[in-house]
């Protein structure tokens, strides 16, 4: 401004600053607001009463001057302390900066604070120099409080809208969604961008429903919990209740405010409940097992058709009864005790098999599964009883049990050792014969065989896990033709034949095996006896042939002629044969003397047999004694028929025998051969072969004594042999 000419002082107008400085105090107080002035150095030079009131103090204007502001302390609106020399007034004085409606906070000496709205203007001199500044300020504390309250309220409302648990949206008059809160967006799964700005009808599943809603709202009607179905972003349908009203301004529809309550879960629960109710009812009636509901006393509250059929009683009849009424009296107490515990809550449920009497009087078996329905408080409400007719099952079980029992008894009674094992070979059953045969009782965990020790037939040990039963199980096949020897703990041995046979279930799986051990001790003994007999027979035959050979040779040597040979040889051979016959009939055991003598003498005597007398006690002879005695008697007989008493019509023969001495080792059998009434006997001139044979048979073979005397009236022969007679 150098080109502007400065007016002389007297000629210029008073500046604003000068005017204000010169104005009376009343002028400043007349200003409706707090006012104060600072000079160009910032010294506080004038202020009015309002300012002092707001400051709560009256700053001095004389020697003790203050700068920039009369307040005790200053703060920015956010509470930051504001030093006086940087406050808006300082800036105006130094820089000429103006302040328009700037808010600052003044603290009074008493600590109270006031928010003020500050307007400051620099006051300039004629040359534009800053002469001072004026600050007009208003106490806006009360507005501030209201403003704050309003702001809070708005924020609350926003928060309420935005964060409300209830879905909320606002729709304009054209049906466009204007706003939607989080709950609404979450309910349907859209983002705000996807939802806001679209037509509300797009999200309704039922066009006529939204049409109806909009038209009703358009007429200013309220909707209260109006059911509708919304389409969520994932395609699912949400069941909602809409509560809405319209906002009208000057009778004009502005928008609608809708609260959307999601009742999908409720809806589903309801549908589910209904379906389950229906299903239960259908199941209840269609069930082939009986179902009943009973109160705590057992009175029937509900029964299904199946139960009516099962009991042969009508529904009406059953509903007048308690379930005890049809229960067999012997089972009633048991059922009642359990049911009482259940109603008291001591049992959740129980299972019971009981007898019941049908309408027709027939007794049936029922399996009861009883459970309780309780209220939320845990109180017993009613009992649910599921009832199955198991009469047929029971009968079958009884039959199976009895047939199992029967089988067991059968196996027990079987005269062969029988035992069973599981698939692993553990013994599961054995009968008495098995215990007897093995000489021990199988112990738990015993494997493969009931026997104590096993041997092969050649005497080598046979480990149990290699026994025929183990093979049958391991190879899953029956084993036949095996033979083994079991040793009992007492050391005795039993030869046996095992018959191990695998057992299979219906699917053909190996479940175990059964084995039968047949004791072949007797067979073995018989085989051994037979071998001995065959050996003995062979020996006998060979000895006999040797005897025959000897007799032949000797008879030939001593025969007078062929005819003599024939008679003597035939007699000797036949006697031998008859003795053999007799011994064979008696299995080469003892032979009775009387039969022997008769068998030898009767055929020799022929017609004279009636004149042969045999007398003596019953004596049993060993085969050795029988054979030797036969030879002697045949020689004597042949002689008697050829030359002696039996050669005539009148002669007779008596054979007497008796025992001498006590029974036991020192007994002797004495036989006396006496011929009478025959031709006169002349002693032979030479000792013949017959005599030697007789002597040999008695003395050599039997260590007996042989004495032959040729009396003229008849031949007399005495034979004495040691004999074993059983003591009486």
């Amino acid at each position, binding site marked *: 401004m150098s080109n502007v000419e400065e007016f002389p002082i007297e000629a210029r107008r008073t500046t604003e600053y000068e005017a204000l400085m010169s104005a009376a105090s009343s002028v400043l107080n007349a200003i409706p607001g707090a006012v104060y002035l600072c000079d160009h150095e910032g010294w506080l030079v004038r202020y009015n009463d309002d300012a002092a009131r707001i400051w709560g103090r009256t700053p001095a204007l004389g020697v003790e001057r203050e700068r920039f502001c009369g307040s005790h302390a200053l703060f920015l609106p956010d509470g930051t302390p504001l030093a006086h020399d940087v406050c808006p007034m300082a800036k105006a004085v130094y820089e000429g900066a103006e302040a328009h409606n700037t808010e600052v906070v003044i603290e009074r000496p008493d600590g109270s604070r006031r928010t003020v709205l500050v307007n400051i203007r620099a006051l300039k001199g004629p040359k534009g120099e800053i002469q001072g500044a004026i600050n007009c300020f208003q106490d806006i504390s009360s507005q501030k409080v209201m403003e704050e309250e309003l702001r809070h309220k708005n924020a609350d409302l926003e928060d309420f809208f935005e964060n409300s648990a209830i879905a909320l949206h606002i729709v304009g008059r054209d049906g466009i969604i204007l706003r939607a809160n989080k709950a609404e967006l979450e309910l349907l799964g859209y983002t705000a961008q996807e939802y806001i700005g679209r037509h509300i009808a797009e999200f309704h599943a039922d066009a006529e429903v939204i049409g109806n809603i909009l038209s009703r709202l358009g007429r200013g009607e309220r909707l209260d919990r109006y059911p509708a179905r919304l389409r969520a972003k994932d395609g699912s349908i949400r069941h909602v209740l809409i509560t809405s009203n319209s906002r009208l301004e000057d009778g004009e529809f502005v928008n609608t405010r809708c609260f959307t309550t999601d009742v999908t879960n409720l809806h589903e629960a309801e549908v589910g409940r209904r379906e389950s109710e229906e299903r239960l009812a259908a199941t209840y009636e269609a069930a082939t097992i009986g179902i009943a509901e009973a109160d705590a006393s057992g009175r029937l509250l509900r029964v299904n058709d199946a139960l009516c059929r099962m009991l042969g009683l009508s529904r009406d009849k059953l509903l007048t009864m308690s379930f005890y009424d049809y229960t067999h009296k012997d089972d009633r107490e048991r059922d009642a005790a359990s049911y009482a515990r259940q109603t008291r809550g001591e049992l959740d449920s129980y299972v019971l098999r009981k007898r019941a009497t049908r309408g027709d009087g027939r007794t049936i078996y029922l399996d009861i599964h009883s459970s309780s329905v309780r209220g939320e408080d845990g109180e017993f409400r009613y009992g649910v009883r599921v009832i199955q007719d198991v009469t047929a099952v029971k009968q079958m079980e009884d039959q199976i049990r009895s047939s199992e029992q029967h089988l067991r008894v059968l196996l027990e009674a079987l005269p062969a050792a029988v035992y069973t094992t599981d698939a692993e070979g553990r013994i599961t059953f054995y009968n008495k014969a098995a215990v007897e045969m093995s000489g021990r009782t199988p112990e738990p965990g015993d494997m493969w065989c009931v026997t104590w020790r096993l041997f092969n037939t050649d005497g080598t040990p046979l480990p149990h896990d290699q026994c025929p039963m183990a093979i049958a199980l391991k190879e899953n096949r029956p084993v036949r033709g095996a033979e083994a020897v079991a040793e009992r703990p007492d050391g005795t041995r039993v030869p046996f034949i095992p018959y191990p046979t695998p057992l299979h279930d219906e699917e053909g799986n190996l479940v175990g095996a059964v084995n039968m051990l047949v004791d072949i001790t007797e067979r073995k003994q018989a085989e051994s006896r037979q071998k001995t007999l065959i*050996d003995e027979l*062979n020996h006998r035959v060979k000895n006999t042939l*040797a005897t025959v050979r*000897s007799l032949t*040779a000797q008879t030939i040597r001593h025969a007078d002629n062929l005819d003599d040979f024939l008679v003597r040889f035939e007699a000797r051979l036949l006697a031998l044969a008859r003795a053999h016959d007799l011994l064979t009939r008696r299995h080469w055991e003892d032979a009775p003397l009387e039969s022997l003598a008769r068998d030898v003498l009767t055929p020799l005597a022929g017609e004279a047999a009636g004149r042969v007398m045999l007398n003596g006690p019953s004596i049993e002879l060993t085969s050795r004694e029988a054979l030797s005695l036969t030879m002697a008697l045949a020689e004597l007989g042949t002689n008697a028929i050829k030359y002696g008493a039996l050669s005539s019509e009148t002669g007779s023969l008596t054979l007497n025998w008796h025992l001498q001495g006590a029974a036991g080792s020192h007994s002797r059998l004495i036989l006396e051969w006496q011929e009478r009434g025959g031709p006169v006997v002349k002693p032979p001139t030479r000792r013949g072969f017959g005599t030697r*044979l007789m002597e040999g048979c008695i003395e050599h*073979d039997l260590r007996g004594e042989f004495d032959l005397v040729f009396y003229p009236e008849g031949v007399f022969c005495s034979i004495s042999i040691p004999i074993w007679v059983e003591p009486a």
Partner: protein
Amino acid sequence: MTVFTDVKVLIVEDEFTVAMMIEDALAELGCRIVSSSSRVPHACEIAETADIDVAVLDVNVAGQPVFPVAEILRRRRVPMLFSTGYGVAALPPAFSSHPVLSKPFSDRELQQALTLCITANSAANAGGV
């Protein structure tokens, strides 16, 4: 048949007819029968004491095995032969090297066995000396 002259024989045979045949056959060969026994205990006594050159032993003597007699004879180094109806298998291994006559046998078989028996024994004794 001078070879058997005065050969002293013990016969153990329980069946007289067979014993008689053996006795007769041996007598014809020139042998002398020391004893013809039909019982094992009796035969043992004879075998123990008598002067015997050779023995003809039945294996089964009245139900008893003849081996006690054979034991004595072996101890006394008396040659022996066995006659049996059972066959060679009836002999225990200790005596299986001795000649065996299977009943019935002929005089000729008896003579051959006896020859074998005495010759073998003489050879053994000769070798031993």
